[in-house]
């Protein structure tokens, strides 16, 4: 990854006495596609607004390209934002919307016309110059909002849940569109969403936030395969989080059955949590299983079946598989060693919220 472009240092922010961001430190490398991911109220949008200059942090500073910009108003920052629900100017047509930033900077008319044309082409809306904002669909308005931001050639594009108002199919198309744009423009994207699938699809770096803290930061693969706490494991995709005991390195005991795993350094006979993704569980003949259970529930999901397997101790395992095991069937459960992720048990609720940066 490239050099650091934006540095958030000890950022704190509260609204009406309620802490929204608590001592947040984050380095954003140049040319990253970085996603701030978390449930609503986790502080991700506020973080974005602090970078954009719409909120001022109570404490800490924002360093951009080696320069402290904490007190620089948004119009003097070399970054642009794509807002939630687009925030297009309703009294201007499409060309005027896109040209707004350039007109403010007193660019020549020829230059502006050129740029508007180029930007519209970039977002696949050539020829829409004279249309009204109202006459455009949500997806088209979204593209205009992006075009309006990128004509200013910002070093960083901030995107605040830009796809939230679109329907599923359009959202998926726009994800690919955004990846393409990012590659064509070669600038840094900072993206805010609560949709984990969106985050996994597009980003090269994901920052999972919860209650104003950063829980985990890493590549999509790291976040998905090696969640460092129950919150991340649960938030990113579905998982089985099972109380277990680490017998010794590379061996974990779950409900009395011993599973081989790849984790080391947890000590001997230590209570831990084991995280197993539903698609990583293989259902086999009962005699071949490490554990034995009975299928109690099946839903057909299209790509796969979602099954619930209850083991004698009462735990309900969530299993995804393309092979159907009907309700009532006795099955064996096996898991490959590298599909088991071991986590320390949270000591207190407080610790559950504090993440470890990888």
């Amino acid at each position, binding site marked *: 990854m490239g050099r650091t472009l934006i540095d958030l240092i000890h950022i704190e922010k509260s609204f009406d006495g309620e802490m929204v961001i608590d001592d947040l430190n984050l380095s954003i490398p140049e040319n990253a596609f970085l996603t701030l991911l978390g449930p609503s109220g986790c502080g991700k949008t506020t973080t974005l607004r602090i970078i954009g200059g719409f909120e001022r942090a109570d404490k800490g500073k924002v360093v951009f390209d080696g320069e402290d910009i904490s007190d620089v108003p*948004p*119009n003097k920052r070399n970054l642009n*934002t794509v807002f939630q629900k687009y925030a*297009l*100017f309703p*009294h201007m047509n499409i060309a005027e919307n896109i040209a707004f*930033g350039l007109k403010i900077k007193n660019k020549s008319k020829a230059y502006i016309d050129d740029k508007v044309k180029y930007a519209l082409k970039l977002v696949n809306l050539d020829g829409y110059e004279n249309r009204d904002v109202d006459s455009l669909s949500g997806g088209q308005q979204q593209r205009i909002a992006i075009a309006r931001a990128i004509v*200013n050639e910002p070093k960083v594009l901030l995107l605040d849940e830009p796809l939230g108002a679109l329907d599923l199919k359009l959202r998926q198309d726009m994800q690919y569109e955004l990846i393409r744009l990012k590659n064509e423009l070669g600038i840094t994207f900072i993206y805010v969403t609560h949709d984990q699938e969106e985050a996994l699809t597009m980003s090269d770096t994901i920052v999972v936030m919860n209650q104003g803290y950063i829980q985990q930061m890493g590549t999509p693969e790291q976040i998905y395969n090696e969640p460092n706490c129950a919150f991340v494991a649960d938030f990113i995709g579905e998982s089985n989080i099972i109380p277990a005991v680490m017998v010794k390195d590379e061996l974990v005991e779950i409900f009395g059955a011993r599973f081989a795993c790849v984790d080391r350094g947890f000590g001997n006979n230590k209570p831990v949590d084991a995280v197993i993704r539903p698609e990583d569980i293989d259902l086999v003949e009962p005699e071949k299983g490490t554990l034995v259970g009975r299928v109690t529930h099946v839903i057909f999901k299209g790509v796969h079946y979602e099954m619930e397997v209850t083991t004698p101790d009462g735990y309900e395992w969530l299993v995804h598989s393309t092979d159907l095991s009907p309700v009532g069937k006795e099955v064996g459960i096996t898991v490959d060693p590298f599909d088991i992720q071991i986590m320390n048990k949270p000591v207190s609720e407080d610790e559950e919220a504090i993440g470890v940066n990888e």
Partner: protein
Amino acid sequence: MNNFLSKIKSRKILVFPYVFWILGFTVVPLILIVIYGLTDKNGVLTFENITSMGTYEHMKALILSLLLSLISTLICLLLAYPLALILKKRGAGAGRFIVFIFVLPMWMNFLLRTLAWQTLLEKNGIINGILSLFTLPGIAVINTNYAIILGMVYNFLPFMVLPIYNVLVKIDDNVVNAARDLGASRRQTFFHILLPLSIPGIVSGITMVFVPALTTFVISNILGGAKILLIGNVIEQEFTRGSGWHLGAGLSLVMMVFIFISMALIAKYDSQEGRTF
């Protein structure tokens, strides 16, 4: 019978009382103004009542009315816009506050409120009393055009504030943020974004202030003494003092046409500039 019942179900019948009411008490009376305005005492068609607007004293009253109402409308706009902006920035609670402070005075009779300004402005009135306490020179505005303007601004300010506030609160904060994000300074954001987007509110505020100010006879009567005649005073006197109903109706007709033309012009401007709403 069946047909009739299905008509009831279609609910359209509910509009009938209102249609009768409009015809009887809005349309017919307006037609009567036209008839009175275009006839003399003997019922003969004449344009004298209309053309008498062109006489010196009527013209003088009309021009003075126009002048004073335009000035008060402008002052209302200049006072109300910053007020509405401040209230928008104060967030949701401000909406309740604004209704509170502007609707409450309406329950104290507006004649009394205007009379109270007499007490405040008089030569030996309260304001001059306060000024003399600080050995400042007194003001002599009572019974002048200035007092009338003050009375108009005082009475009609709420009707400028409310519509402007209502359009301003509907503007998405992110639209303003977007302008800042794209490099606009606070001034540029105001002139390029907020102002154009609030034109519909400004327009309806202007009509709601300008029309009553133009046609008032009470404010000029109370704060202007009996000396200053506005067009409203002229018309009122034709009806209450003299028996010049035909003349009064003729002048009202001219005024009404004048109001509706300016309204149409404003509406046209509104639909061109404010296509946002």
